[in-house]
């Protein structure tokens, strides 16, 4: 079930941690609960990870012997400064906001059309799982023919929240979060950890 604006307001004000949704910073007065839109806009943060193409020519995140992945370089672009995303380039960015999800909520990250119509994709792995906490990493890609000028602070996307069900919340009480990215604020590529099935298939 998708959460309405008033549901979101309740979750943001919830006293109990197992119900509480945290968005920080949430600018006072900017979250208009009378709006009909069920989404919550988020803003582009200052931390970027740019993939350098000089040394490695291909992505290979699989932890196999002798394989090397493209190494990223981290950049900090302060508020008020521009970042140019060139045609065909993909960089990792983050949200300005820190999100802390209770175990019965998840969200889908969706780009705003004002940017999408100019060729900017902001995300490929769009689901934010229950219990996640940290800034959300964005995969920014310019699909257009000319550079896109990005400035930290612009509202590049929005979140649509969904209730997962009580089973998820019960699981959250028993088990640890165990997310690779919990508590993270850096746009990192992440270590590829194959599942048992993947290991079986990859090593055949």
């Amino acid at each position, binding site marked *: 079930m998708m959460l309405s604006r008033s549901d979101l307001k309740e979750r943001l004000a919830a006293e109990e941690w197992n119900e*509480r949704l*945290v968005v*920080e910073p949430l600018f*006072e007065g900017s979250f208009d609960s009378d709006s009909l839109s069920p989404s919550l806009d988020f803003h582009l943060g200052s931390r970027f990870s740019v993939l350098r193409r000089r040394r490695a020519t291909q992505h290979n995140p699989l932890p196999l012997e002798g394989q090397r992945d493209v190494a990223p370089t981290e950049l900090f672009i302060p508020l008020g400064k521009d970042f140019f995303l060139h045609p065909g380039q993909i960089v990792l960015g983050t949200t300005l906001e*820190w999100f802390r999800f209770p175990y019965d909520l998840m969200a889908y990250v969706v780009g705003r059309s004002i940017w999408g119509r100019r060729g900017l994709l902001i995300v490929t792995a769009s689901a934010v799982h229950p219990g996640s*906490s940290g800034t959300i990493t964005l995969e920014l890609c310019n699909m257009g023919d000319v550079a896109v000028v990005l400035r930290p602070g612009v509202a590049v996307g929005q979140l649509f929240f969904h209730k997962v069900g009580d089973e998820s919340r019960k699981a959250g009480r028993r088990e*640890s979060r165990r997310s690779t990215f*919990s*508590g993270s604020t850096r746009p990192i590529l992440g270590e590829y950890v194959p599942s048992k099935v993947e290991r079986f298939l990859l090593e055949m």
Partner: protein
Amino acid sequence: MIRRFLQASLNHIAVDEVWTPLFQSGRHDALEGDLISKIAERVCHLSFGAIAQLVDDIPSPIAKNAGGLLRDIESMQQNIENLSPPSVGLGIGDEIDTANKFWLFLYAAWHFRLSVKRFGDFVTTNGWISDVSKAEGALGNLVLHALESLELRFRWKSYVDTEERGVR
């Protein structure tokens, strides 16, 4: 020995649970009677009275719980425990009040880190037992994000206040 002197002169410090593991180790008590221990005892005798007087003359705002600081610190630590930046729920006051939160964040974070129970639970709950540095990294990220957020919220409030006064 230090525990005894702290309890006698500065008990409000000695009761803080972050010192418990140090006091309960028992290693230092075993040295009593040694020459080093006697020298240490003499140093404690000479210094603790003066230190206690100094601390009492310049009271710590936290020890005196000025303006409900202990409540704010507890709130910050509960936020950290739940992987939420410690700035969440803090109201925005004037510039000095907001700037002072910097020290409060650092105090809360260090106190949280030194608490064996709280930090241990934080590590376990989030599945970082095999790599405690991830927990320390998350703690650092939470504090840094709180500082950035507090500044942004303060600037936003100033911006809105100025706009409402019709200056813009």
